[in-house]
């Protein structure tokens, strides 16, 4: 077991310069009876140590597939995934197992991500047992410690998932993920299935743990407000491709891609005065079928400012100053399109 481990990346040599996660040109094509679906179509991402990258997109954007490919629950059909410098794209399941202590995952639906037949204690202990991280005698104590870290009491270890509330289940999920002390946490819509007040407590917990433990995090969500709360950088996906990436504050202050602008403007602000005064960009039409994505820029069918070139040429994801990337023919130098930045109408200004 340890022999396998030393060949890829011994922990000693890995320094801060090696990103926790590096994804290059990731592709995940599904062959269906109707043709090839390009769920993920050339996505590149980098997450540094202790960095939180928000991956935002609507349903069908392929954001969850990226996450599942990274933890290899889904098999990429192209590209490269490196975990702390080790290429894991094509490692066999067996070869990957020792590396599983470096990454873990929190799912969206807390009711289906926990085995209903196990107690929460058994659930949290499973990674510890499988990787022999803790001697058998110390298992219970370690589990109770982990439960404490996610705000649960020791006696919760003897409950079954269905005896817990949604928020508590999501805490169990987090405790399980953190039991291996991963360097990378993939959080796939961890709060989307929760109520508003519960959502707040889980986000707080995630932020606290991230600060204390310093793990890198790929935070996948459709909720812009949640991603703003947690992420250092945000990448926006549309139909399998990243259309824009920027540091969080910049993305909200001055979104460059028309899709990002529409997304920011469509999310209603919970304040009637502000919300009703906002100018909303309503996108027309629907998400095109991923079976036959439109040529050129994928977004041109719904883009309010598309020009002829957008219908034929695929825009490149270009680097802009300030660590930004955007894929739009109309963006030259980091200047927002028609000067409109919907997020400026922030509610706190009222």
């Amino acid at each position, binding site marked *: 077991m340890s022999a396998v481990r030393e060949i890829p990346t011994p922990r000693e040599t890995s320094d801060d310069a090696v990103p926790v996660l590096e994804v290059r040109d990731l592709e995940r094509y599904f062959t269906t009876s109707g043709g090839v679906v390009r769920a993920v179509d050339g996505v590149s991402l980098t997450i540094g140590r202790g960095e939180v990258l928000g991956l935002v997109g609507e349903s069908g954007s392929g954001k969850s597939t990226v996450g599942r490919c990274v933890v290899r629950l889904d098999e990429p059909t192209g590209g490269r995934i490196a975990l702390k410098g080790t290429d894991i794209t094509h490692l066999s399941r067996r070869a990957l197992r020792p590396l599983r202590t470096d990454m873990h*995952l929190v799912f*969206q639906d807390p009711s289906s991500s926990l085995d209903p037949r196990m107690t929460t204690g058994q659930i949290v202990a499973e990674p510890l047992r*499988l*990787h022999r991280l803790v001697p058998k005698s110390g298992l219970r104590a370690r589990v109770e410690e982990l439960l404490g870290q996610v705000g649960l009491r020791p006696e919760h270890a003897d409950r079954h998932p269905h005896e817990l509330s949604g928020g508590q289940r999501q805490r169990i999920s987090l405790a*399980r993920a953190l039991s291996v002390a991963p360097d990378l946490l993939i959080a796939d819509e961890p709060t989307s299935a929760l109520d508003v007040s519960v959502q707040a407590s889980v986000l707080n917990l995630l932020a606290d743990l991230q600060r204390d433990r310093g793990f890198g995090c790929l935070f996948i969500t459709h909720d812009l407000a949640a991603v703003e709360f947690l992420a250092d950088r945000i990448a926006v996906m549309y139909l399998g491709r990243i259309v824009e990436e920027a540091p969080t504050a910049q993305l909200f202050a001055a979104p460059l891609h028309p899709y990002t602008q529409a997304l920011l403007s469509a999310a209603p602000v919970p304040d009637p005065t502000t919300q009703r005064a906002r100018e909303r960009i309503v996108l027309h039409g629907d998400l095109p079928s991923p079976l036959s994505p439109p040529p050129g820029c994928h977004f041109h069918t719904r883009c309010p400012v598309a020009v002829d070139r957008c219908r034929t040429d695929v825009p490149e994801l270009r680097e802009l100053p300030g660590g930004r990337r955007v894929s739009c023919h109309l963006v030259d130098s980091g200047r927002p399109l028609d000067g409109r930045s919907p997020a400026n109408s922030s509610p706190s200004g009222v």
Partner: protein
Amino acid sequence: MTATPDTVDVAAVSAAPAAAPRPGTLRTRLRALRRNRLALTGAVIAAVFVLAALCAPLLTPYDPAGPDFDAALAPPSWAHWLGTDDLGRDQLSRVIYGARASMQVGLLAVVLAFLIGVPLGLAAGYYGKYADSAVSRLTDTLLAFPFLVLAVGLAAVLGPSLLNATLAIGISQVPAVIRITRAETLRLKHLDYVGAAIVNGGGDGTVLARHILPNATSALIVQATVGIPAAIIGEALLSFLGLGVQPPAPSLGVMLAGAQPFLGPAPWMAVFPGLAIVAATLAFNLLGDGLRDVLDPRGGTR
């Protein structure tokens, strides 16, 4: 306006008291089963049969194979509750021993079918691709042989016996077990908690043994309660045709076969073993239906 209102509000209501135990635990399910009258009746009759089979030597007043020509073809009486057959053998003793044979075959055949079918179904469902195609071919091949042909073949090669009848019945049930295990595995392997087990670092063995198989047990239990009565009937049929239990050893099928010439003068010879078969089959089917209602995760909330 055509939506299903009951699903909407039941979900809303059951989501409310999060701390209260929800339906789905084994205990609540057993309680639900106890309330189901038919299933309970089935369970009681099935238990009586199992007990009778286990304690046959203690319960039987006469030697089931011992002839008593003085009492041949006696109608039911205090001495012989269910009458006697043409050789004067006590029908009650023979029915009890016959039930014992039925139970033996029923349970053994189902165990055999599970031992073969469950691993194959798990492999087919979990690994997919080649494993799935290979298992599918096997299933198709098995299904292509009608169970009687298989039984006749086995009897021809190995000679007729209770064991070979069991073998034939067990093999004939393998495809159903494979199908249900495979379907459950396919359903379960896409659930998040199975994904989580893989991300935990679990190998295929861990995932299958700790997460998939335990969660498939409900479906498998139901399958077993369907398989047992089918095997009981199968045993009776094979024995009736002379391919199973060999006379003079008692079996419900053998008794029916032996009763044929005496249907007029001694109808009890056919009626009681027939009733026993019906009762056993019905009992397990009722129990199975009840278990299906109780164990089905979708129906579990109701």
